[in-house]
């Protein structure tokens, strides 16, 4: 009994901190509709700032607290609202998730750069009042923890007063319901938004300062994950209700402590040892089951700027051929290590393809793509290696791949079920929670878990030695342990799957998926069972994620159990895929290339420069090199805000006009091939080849447009002018007539658009 009470006290202490963290999230969500994933990063950087003020510069505790929680954190919140969140208002759910991810990575990158760029130093935050503690029921309870409880209660009370008794609070609540109406009634929704972001960020900062000392030495991503643990409480409160969030946070804290008590800090059930770390994720699923059905929303995308055009099958096949040929040519030029980078990129592109279907076409969210890779790996392993096999000699079979895809589909279906009737964000959270659970309970599992199905022995945990060698295929007499061969195999697979996806997109099924994304409400009124369709798409996408993930694992050849399975890698992949242009196959390709080549090769360039010029090492490596790690994600977020359709769209728009000068384009393409040949033979250097090709990408379109101006009249003027001013600001041109006809929807003179797609 004494123990029970003692653990209850501990549970309340932990729950209090969770409550503060979760409430901050709820406050910002309820006034902006943005699930601010970066909330955890705000907590982390606030903890660092507090440490800097208190222990670095030795300010007094009260002053440091005020500066951190009442000045710095709210300032960050206001900055985020003004610069980032405000622009998210009319965007899709996906964009509203991706940009906070970018912000998260940017803030964490910034924090790494400011405090950790010179390598491992130990930042050890101290608790309030140091190690002083009370003895409560035989348990040491730190003053720090007691303060946490007190602050939680103060937060609860303060928020109640704010939201229900103050003008600002009423305005905040009104902003949720109907912004325009509020403005018409003299309210200031913008000010209310700023207020709520300031408060939300302040609470995040407070949570960070309270949580940080419990970790020992501060690790940025680990602390962020600790804050994530509080999110199930917010979900339980439907991201709106502060009281329920509080209750949920207490439940969370108590459950964790009780589990520790009952399992003796995890000792009792060895196989479930990591369950304690998976408890928040499990409770998230439970919360999802109890949430009421979401309202069918109407079209949001109609009012956004996201646009995806679709290639014809012929175009797709042609581009596929070009890709295979280009890849073959490119890898012939490259050295071994560069081929590895390229192959890594191709594997990531394969994983991103699953997101083209799920997120690009259906508008749903999967934040655990790497986890499906892990699931696929476990299944394929059983079939191809088995408990007694030797991974380094085994080869990946088609049967294993198909079985892995099947299992991934089933697993995907199971995860999605609780979240299907809810809005897309919850599905994303469910996948993230799933990722955490698999990571903790399966991948980090070191106790052997064996069983048998139909007489077949199988092993759940694979990473018993901390690392795992993954078999590669051996097909058509080719041993794909050869890196270049495997690269080409993955390229071919990418093209085939890409073609299949284009085929889906152009089919009735594809149209239905797109329709479901564009307006679920309309689809329901057409008799579509949206949940079934969503389930089907999610299962198919999971199967693809498993396939891509298996190829990725095989590409890595040897995996460590902490290699990308912890959740952040999936977030990054999702973000880059969306930025690349998730509605396009080429967007997936760009994502993979970007992640691999740019984020690996660019830092390598800086490292090489820093090594070659040691006196400038600081500048190259710690300066620019690390700087790009956070500027990168930040720029990505901003870019996506400006063009939600992604990069692929813009690249293709840049190239589209070239179709009108087929001869010129053909000549250019042939010259590239010739140059490649010369480079391959060594007649010209690789550098030269790269520079010339890229330079031509700039120059040739301009040249062609200059040489044949009459073919590009409409492009030259398109999108830049108000139709009302045609004839006034400049003289009429022939193509203007067609444009007017289009604008006015006049029949007869209308000609199809020059790049008609179906």
């Amino acid at each position: 009994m004494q123990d029970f009470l003692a653990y209850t006290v501990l549970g309340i202490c932990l729950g209090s901190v969770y409550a503060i963290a979760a409430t901050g999230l709820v406050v910002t969500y309820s006034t902006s509709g943005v699930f601010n994933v970066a909330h955890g990063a705000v907590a982390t950087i606030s903890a660092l700032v507090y440490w800097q003020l208190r222990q670095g510069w030795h300010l007094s505790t009260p002053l440091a607290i005020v500066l951190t929680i009442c000045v710095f954190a709210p300032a960050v919140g206001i900055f985020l609202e003004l610069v980032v969140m405000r622009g998210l208002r009319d965007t899709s759910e996906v964009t509203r998730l991706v940009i906070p991810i970018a912000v998260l990575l940017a803030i964490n990158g910034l924090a790494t750069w400011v405090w950790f760029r010179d390598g491992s130093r130990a930042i050890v935050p101290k608790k309030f009042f140091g190690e002083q503690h009370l003895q409560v029921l035989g348990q040491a309870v730190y003053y720090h923890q007691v303060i946490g409880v007190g602050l939680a209660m103060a937060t609860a009370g303060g928020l109640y007063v704010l939201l229900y008794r103050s003008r600002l609070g009423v305005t905040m609540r009104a902003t949720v319901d109907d912004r325009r109406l509020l403005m018409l009634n003299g309210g200031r929704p913008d000010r209310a938004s700023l207020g709520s972001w300031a408060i939300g960020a302040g609470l995040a900062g407070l949570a960070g300062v309270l949580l940080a000392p419990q970790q020992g030495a501060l690790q940025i991503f680990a602390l962020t994950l600790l804050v994530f643990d509080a999110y199930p409480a917010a979900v339980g409160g439907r991201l709106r209700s502060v009281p329920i969030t509080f209750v949920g946070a207490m439940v969370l804290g108590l459950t964790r402590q009780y589990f520790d008590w009952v399992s003796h800090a995890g000792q009792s059930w060895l196989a479930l040892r990591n369950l304690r770390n998976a408890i928040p994720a499990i409770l998230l699923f439970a919360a999802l089951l109890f949430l009421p059905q979401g309202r069918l929303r109407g079209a949001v995308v109609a009012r956004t700027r996201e646009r995806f055009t679709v290639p014809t099958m012929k175009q797709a096949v042609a581009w596929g051929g070009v890709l295979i040929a280009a890849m073959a040519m490119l890898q012939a030029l490259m050295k071994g290590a560069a081929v590895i980078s390229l192959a890594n990129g191709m594997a990531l592109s394969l994983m991103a393809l699953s997101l083209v279907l799920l997120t690009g076409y259906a508008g749903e969210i999967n934040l655990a793509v790497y986890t499906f890779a892990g699931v696929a790996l476990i299944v394929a392993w059983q079939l191809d290696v088995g408990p007694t096999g030797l991974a380094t000699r085994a080869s990946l079979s088609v049967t294993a791949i198909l079985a892995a895809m099947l299992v991934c589909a089933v697993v995907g279906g199971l995860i999605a079920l609780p979240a299907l009737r809810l809005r897309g964000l919850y599905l994303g959270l469910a996948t993230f929670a799933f990722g955490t659970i698999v990571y903790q309970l399966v991948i980090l599992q070191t106790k052997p878990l064996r069983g048998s199905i139909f007489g077949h022995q199988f092993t759940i945990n694979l990473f018993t030695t901390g690392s795992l060698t993954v078999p590669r295929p051996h097909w058509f007499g080719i041993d794909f342990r050869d890196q270049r061969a495997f690269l080409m195999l993955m390229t071919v697979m990418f093209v085939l799957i890409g073609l299949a996806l284009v085929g889906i997109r152009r089919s009735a099924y594809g149209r239905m998926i797109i329709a479901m994304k564009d307006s679920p409400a309309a689809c329901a009124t057409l008799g579509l069972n949206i949940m079934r369709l969503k389930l089907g798409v999610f299962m198919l996408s999971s199967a693809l994620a498993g396939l891509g993930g298996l190829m990725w694992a095989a590409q890595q050849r040897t995996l460590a159990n902490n290699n990308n399975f912890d959740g952040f890698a999936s977030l990054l992949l999702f973000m880059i895929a969306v930025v690349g242009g998730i509605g396009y196959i080429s967007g997936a390709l760009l994502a993979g290339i970007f992640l691999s080549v740019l984020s690996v090769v660019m830092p390598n360039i800086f490292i090489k420069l820093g090594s070659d010029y040691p006196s400038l090492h600081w500048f190259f490596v710690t300066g620019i090199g690390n700087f790009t790690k956070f500027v990168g994600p930040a720029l990505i977020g901003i870019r996506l805000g400006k063009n939600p359709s992604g990069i692929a769209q813009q690249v293709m728009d840049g190239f589209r006009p070239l179709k009108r000068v087929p001869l010129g384009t053909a000549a250019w393409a042939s010259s590239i091939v010739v140059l490649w040949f010369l480079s391959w033979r060594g007649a010209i250097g690789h550098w030269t080849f790269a520079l010339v090709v890229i330079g031509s990408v700039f120059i040739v379109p301009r040249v062609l447009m200059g040489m044949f101006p009459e073919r590009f009249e409409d492009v030259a003027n398109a999108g830049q002018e108000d139709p009302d001013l045609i004839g006034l600001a400049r003289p009429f041109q022939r193509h203007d007539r067609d444009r007017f006809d289009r604008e006015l929807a006049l029949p007869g003179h209308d000609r199809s658009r020059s790049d008609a797609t179906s």
Partner: protein
Amino acid sequence: MDQKSFRVVAAVAVLALIAAACGSDRTAATPSTVPAAAAAPIAPDATTPAETTPVDTAAPGTATPDTTPTDTAAPDTAAPDTVAPDTTPESTVPPLPMFGDAPWPCGPGGGDNTDDGNEVGVTTDSISIATGDDAGYAGSPGLSHEITDAMKALVAECNDLGGINGRTINLNYYDAKLFETPAAMQSACDASNFFLVGEGWAFDSNQEEIRLGCGLPAVPTYSVSAAFAHGANVYQGVPNPADETTSGIFAQIAKLFPEASKHVATLTGAFSATQETRDKIVSVGPKFGWGFAETTLESNPVGEADWTPFVKQIKDSGAEMISWQGSCLPGLLLFAQTAKANGLDLPIVVDSNHYTAQCAAANTDGALDNLYIRMSFVPFEDASLNPATQDYLDLIAKHGGDVAMLGAQATSSFLLWATAASACGAELTRTCVLQNLADTHSWTGHGLHAETDPGSNHPPKCSSVLHLVGGTYERVVPTAPATFECDDAWISPITGTPALTAALLDENRISQQFAAG
């Protein structure tokens, strides 16, 4: 907007393709690859570093680089003396520059180097070697960079002395960034390196297939996986085989704490590497009188929000000593603080990875005052009494960089390789160097650490124990500085661990796991 962002994208693509096209050919041109200094004949009438006895203190090691290069004996004087480690009675022969208790294995050689063109990375006047660390890993920037600091300094010194028999060492650096080991190894292979020397890549199981495929031999700073520790053509200054473990610590602790060591609780980070270490301890400890009260406690390596349950569990088990597998920061510090707050005050036995400046610096409140650390290297506190340690510190002080035990370990591996290479004389081949390495059965890194057997891949049978008090590490046993207690019985065999099983050792204890088959 269209044009502008198109340009941005194109610019980004430019950089990507350039980077891809030029591959990852990295040459860290060290400042002293210029061979001029080494070859210049200097009259031997400058200040002579008088002492040549190995046991003497700093002077020879430190004086050599910044005094006149009398030690780089001109090719036309006293030629045959460059290789001989023992001092000749001839007073006209200048004494050899020392590192620790033995001379530098570097010098101008006989000028008769041959090169049949078949040996990778070797010419008549140069050797290309590869090294690296995980410094670029985003999660822990600068990881293991002390290795490279040491390697660069050593190579610079060696080249100043003439290189390996007059062959200048070109040091190529590759950053594995923890998870990019295959790319680093592939680059090392592609760049035609002679040997891999002193590299420290944590995820080394991921490299073996490539390394074996290109036949690159290695003398690394450390190994993590069993496959690499038992890799073909791999030798280490301080071997770390998977089928044997150094067990002096058990005996020493049992002697220091005869009662407490019969009730040990293990506390391990939930990573297989640490879990494997724990399993080894649990299986070997009893042979030296250890008894275990609790062997299953595992903690979250990412961070525990609350260590109290663990403290409770240890208390309840009746343990009187704790054996910790993990790292000093963040886990151990916080655990120790929680333990102290809850009235748990037990000695904690840890491995040598807890001998770091950061760990000592973090012990501001004395929570870590119970730490007992196994050491097979001479601690820096004993540097004034141990020439090798002092030479290492001076080396880094001179060339810049950071000091850590990892750097000392890198030094040992470099000297091991350099000694073996130097002994090959004019005709330098991989076969010859590997043979010399295989024949080295007694190695102390010129006095940096306890004696090991690199040639037969045996860990040290010697051990010492340090104790952390406040911010300093104090010696516990043996009491004489820069010494170790040794015993043949202190190497214990290990069998049946998952890592060993996976490594597939053949009868020569060489791993076949990644051998092409």
